[in-house]
């Protein structure tokens, strides 16, 4: 059995020098810890309550999704995509389906694209609800998670009615979606948008304006734009640092270029900015959904797709904006109906790799807050 110290030596990049070694001790945060949300383990070298070094240790939830993709045709792998990011499965579905469409030049009916956008944005809201509650839970407030779950439940009911499941969706298909939306869906979504707008007031009163909350997040975990770039951070993390990078605008896919929405950006890159960016993103998602429901065309929801999809030799890449940032699939095909290799670039992985640098010199309480503001989903990192 290795001691924690030996393990630490294995994972620590270089020992910190400026503080006498004898004052340091090692602390394992996770894999079972209330605020690592799943099975992330962070090895901490600490001096009192200060974190000298933090080293995430991954792999506790590894399921070989990329390898599995090499032995399955597109449909057989589709359920796996939803299991990578359990909090926002539809963007993962979306990227995967769109990848094959790009590789095989498959036309997607317009209505299907709209349905994809609407459901993906609803899923982003679900994910942000979950994050908001969990983040506040990390900061020690118990009640907001129940409120956000109340709202989340409304969206889940809508999504369940149309996709058949509540969490790990397998709804998109190459060439469209597997079930059409109906008037009831449109109506319920409209009602939900109205309700959610009301609820933002409650969030703002209970959380955003709260002095304790502000004190806990303001100036905590500052990620400079330069640092965010260096680690390839994406999503609300990079936007919180002031870089307006969003795949939906930078490289519009599906029908995102037809909607009028904005990319919220922060100014300082601290946890508060990331919090505000996500809240604003929820509002923007509502706007996108509203417009999409307005413009929703009639037509088929599933295009013409050959029963057995023959992949041409070559490669393709497709990036979507998942709830946590840029998700891109890269596929190399050598013919046949299964990929030769599928590489999945997940946002949380890059966002987590910031942590060692970010955590240096932080209080442990701030580390929890900063980690919460990164919005990590561990199954997505481990895949």
């Amino acid at each position, binding site marked *: 059995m290795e001691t924690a110290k030996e393990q630490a030596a294995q994972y620590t990049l270089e020992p910190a020098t400026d503080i006498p070694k004898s004052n340091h001790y090692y602390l394992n945060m996770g894999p079972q810890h209330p605020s690592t949300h799943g099975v992330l383990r962070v090895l901490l070298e600490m001096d009192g309550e200060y974190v000298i070094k933090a080293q995430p240790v991954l792999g506790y939830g590894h399921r070989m999704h990329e390898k599995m993709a090499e032995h399955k045709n597109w*449909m057989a792998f589709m359920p796996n995509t939803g299991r990578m990011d359990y909090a926002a499965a539809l963007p993962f579905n979306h990227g995967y389906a769109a990848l094959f469409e790009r590789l095989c030049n498959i036309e997607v009916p317009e209505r299907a694209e709209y349905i994809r956008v609407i459901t993906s944005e609803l899923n982003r809201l679900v994910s942000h609800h979950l994050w908001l509650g969990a983040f506040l839970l990390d900061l020690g407030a118990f009640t907001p998670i129940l409120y956000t779950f109340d709202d989340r439940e409304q969206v889940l009911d809508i999504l369940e009615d149309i996709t058949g499941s509540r969490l790990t969706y397998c709804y998109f298909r190459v060439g469209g979606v597997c079930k059409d939306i109906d008037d009831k869906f449109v109506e319920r979504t409209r009602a939900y948008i109205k309700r959610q707008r009301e609820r933002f007031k409650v969030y703002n009163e209970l959380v955003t304006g709260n002095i304790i909350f502000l004190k806990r997040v303001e100036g905590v975990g500052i990620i400079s734009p330069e640092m965010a770039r260096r680690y390839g951070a994406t999503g609300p993390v990079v936007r919180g640092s002031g870089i307006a990078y969003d795949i939906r605008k930078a490289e519009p896919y599906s029908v995102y270029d037809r909607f009028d929405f904005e990319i919220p950006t922060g100014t300082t890159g601290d946890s508060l900015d990331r919090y505000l960016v996500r809240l604003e993103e929820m509002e923007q998602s509502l706007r996108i959904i509203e417009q999409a429901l307005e413009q929703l065309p009639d037509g088929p929801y599933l295009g013409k797709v050959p029963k057995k999809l023959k992949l041409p030799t070559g490669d393709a890449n497709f990036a979507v904006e998942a709830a946590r940032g840029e998700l891109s699939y890269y596929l190399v095909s050598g013919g046949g109906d299964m990929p030769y290799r599928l590489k999945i670039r997940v946002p949380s992985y890059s966002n987590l790799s910031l942590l060692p640098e970010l955590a240096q010199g932080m209080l442990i309480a701030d580390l929890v807050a900063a980690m919460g503001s990164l919005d990590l989903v561990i199954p997505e990192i481990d895949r």
Partner: protein
Amino acid sequence: MNVKTDLRAERGYFGELWFGAKSLLIGLKVTLKALFKPIVTVQYPREECDITPNYRGHVELVFNPETGGCDCIVCGMCARACPSDCITVKGEKKEGEKGKTLTLFSLDFTKCSLCGSCVETCPKSALTYSQDYNIAGFTREEFHYDLIERLKRRHQQPLAAAAGGN
């Protein structure tokens, strides 16, 4: 678009006290209001939610009232389409009937990923999703469903009623 920055204002000693006290009272107001609002949760298992008819539970054979059985022609498409290998279909040729008759349709629900491939590929639309979400058991074997058995059990009463009624 920048997010709002007015929360970061420098407030000074007394300004901070004032701002803080106000925000804390507003917080208390929100929770006090919630205290007197009705409950939103459902006391499962005393009450149950209405489940949408589109809910995707495990797969189930579709009942065909005309034949009193199912439409499955034992083509095995569903078993081949399943990414998790949880379907086993067997049939045998019977005298005087064209095609095969289904003798075994077993589903290993422990492995099912609820993707819906089987339902979508079935050429006869003989499969559907169950709406049963109250599934729990003590052993794995309890989740190895015999769908033919389940179909019979499900339709014993309706069948009798249909025979008696119209």
